[in-house]
């Protein structure tokens, strides 16, 4: 008789069949589940965006009634933020963090399973509101009262969905913090951590601090509607602006939840394809932490038009402008990393370079809006829509696309078709600019956001935007095709290193491609 040891337990592979995905506690499986969910929701949210853009192709009401249009703008945002971008980064974190820090798995694998499996139910609950009497929430992703309280019966479903999404995010954040604090391989000191891991640790702290506040705010919406309280009702002694403060105390750091891991991804990719170490590693860490801190003290720049004392406007203007300093540090460090590097331009690097250029444009328009007197002109116009799509599409989404192309050969053991990858890049990059760049002009000329009809003077800009949006949407089918091809093993076999010289840039490149089901069961020796 042989005794079963702890090590024997780790020798087994994945369970067979469908139950593997329900019961798995393996970080790679859970990473895959997150990524697949994100991809599906990316297409669902994208379809909603195309409904919006089809309606806006020309002035007048064409295809959908205004209420449904408003439901689309609300759900598109909620689905993209909570269903696509956040799960995609959670998937990347699950796949990569243990492999990058030399840990055998996440610290709390069963909670990891739970934090994923809450997600599809929350997203189904949110989507189910579309089929209810009165439809889905239509007050915008901010769910501002009193408008959101005047809708149909969707509110409790939307609120419960937000609670579940929050629970899922908090559990994922706890897992990441505990993993990085307690499970690093010997020798993997804090200042040796890959930047992707650093950015995720700071993001996880942000999530812990903000999700409960948002959950609290929407709980008060619920009690205002159904239990006779008046937290946000002036007639009962409450204040609707209070909700805006609570929402944006969550909402502003939330955009950094979406962008900090993007910074991490770009900081992994650029050194690999420039064949140089990252320039200014420690300044990157401090810049990320500074951005995380500053994100908590600038929230009211979203509320200039509500009215606030001049001292408040001055404070929020200057505090917001400060964010440009650590962000600038990052951009210059990426440029310095590329400077005199032996660069090659494979698809992940193309996306990373596009990220640096286009995200910086989104950052600059953000700087314009931070100036409170100028913001009175931009507020609630398409200029804002252009700004945040430059930060979240050419920022966060481009970083996710770059990350998938970068690590897909490691995950699947097969190279993607580089020719099709580049075609996907150029189609996406050109179309995304055709879609969002004209929105700066229509916004500056006064076109309001969240409106299904508009004055004829905006017709050309909107027609261009719609053409760009449809090309961008359909170009993503190439991306889905490339992923499926890699999973099916159609491409050339990937080496352990995948990219020339990648072993210099992280522990994950020392593992086989694809990595075995359990990795780093013996901790690596980090020099």
């Amino acid at each position, binding site marked *: 008789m042989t005794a079963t040891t702890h090590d024997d337990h780790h020798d087994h592979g994945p369970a067979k069949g469908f139950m593997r995905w329900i019961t798995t506690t393996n970080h790679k499986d859970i990473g895959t589940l997150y990524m697949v969910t994100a991809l599906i929701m990316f297409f669902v949210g994208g379809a909603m965006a195309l409904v919006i853009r089809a309606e806006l192709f020309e002035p007048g009401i064409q295809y959908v009634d205004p209420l449904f249009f408003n439901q689309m703008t609300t759900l598109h945002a909620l689905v993209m933020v909570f269903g696509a971008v956040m799960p995609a980064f959670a998937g990347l974190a699950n796949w990569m963090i243990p492999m990058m820090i030399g840990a055998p798995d996440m*610290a*709390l694998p069963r*909670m990891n399973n739970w934090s994923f499996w809450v997600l599809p139910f929350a997203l189904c609950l949110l989507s189910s509101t579309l089929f209810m009497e009165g439809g889905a929430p239509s007050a915008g992703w901010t769910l501002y009262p009193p408008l959101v309280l005047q809708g149909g019966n969707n509110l409790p479903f939307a609120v419960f969905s937000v609670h579940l999404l929050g629970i899922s995010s*908090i559990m994922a*954040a*706890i*897992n990441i*913090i*505990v993993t990085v*604090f*307690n*499970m690093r391989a010997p020798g993997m000191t804090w200042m040796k951590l890959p930047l992707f891991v650093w950015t995720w640790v700071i993001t996880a702290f942000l999530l*812990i*601090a903000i*999700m*409960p*506040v948002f*959950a*609290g*705010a929407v*709980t*008060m919406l619920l*009690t205002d509607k159904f239990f*006779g*309280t*008046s*937290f946000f*009702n002036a007639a*009962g*002694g*409450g*204040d609707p602006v*209070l909700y805006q403060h*609570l929402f944006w105390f969550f909402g502003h750091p939330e955009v950094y939840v979406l962008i900090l891991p993007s910074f991490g991804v770009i900081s992994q990719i650029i050194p690999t394809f420039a064949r140089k170490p990252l320039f200014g590693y420690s300044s990157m860490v401090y810049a990320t932490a500074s951005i995380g801190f500053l994100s908590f003290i600038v929230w009211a720049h979203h509320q200039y038009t509500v009215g606030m004392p001049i001292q408040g406007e001055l404070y929020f203007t200057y505090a917001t402008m400060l964010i440009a300093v650590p962000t600038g540090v990052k951009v210059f460090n990426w440029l310095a990393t590329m400077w005199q590097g032996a660069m090659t331009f494979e698809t992940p690097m193309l996306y990373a370079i596009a990220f640096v250029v286009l995200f910086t444009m989104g950052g600059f328009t953000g700087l314009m809006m931070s100036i409170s007197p100028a913001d009175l002109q931009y507020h609630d116009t398409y200029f804002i829509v252009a700004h945040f799509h430059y930060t979240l599409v050419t920022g966060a989404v481009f970083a996710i696309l770059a990350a998938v192309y970068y690590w897909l050969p490691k995950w699947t053991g097969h190279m993607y078709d580089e020719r099709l990858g580049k075609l996907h890049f150029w189609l996406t990059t050109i179309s995304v600019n055709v879609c969002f760049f004209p929105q700066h002009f229509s916004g500056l000329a006064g076109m309001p956001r969240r409106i299904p009809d508009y004055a004829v003077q905006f017709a050309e800009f909107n027609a261009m935007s719609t053409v760009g949006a449809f090309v961008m949407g359909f170009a993503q089918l190439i991306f889905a095709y490339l992923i499926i091809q890699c999973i099916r093993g159609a491409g050339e076999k990937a080496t352990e290193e995948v990219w020339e010289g990648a072993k210099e840039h992280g522990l994950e490149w020392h593992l086989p491609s694809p990595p075995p089901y359990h990795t780093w069961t013996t901790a690596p020796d980090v020099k």
Partner: protein
Amino acid sequence: MELHTKNRVLAVAIGLIALLLYVGTVLMQLLAGKAGS
């Protein structure tokens, strides 16, 4: 302390902070008399 215990202690501590923030957000407004009569 064993690694599993260390992991659980840290996880519970962070979870409690999150719970406190949730309760605190609502409680603060209740105490400020914002819930109405």
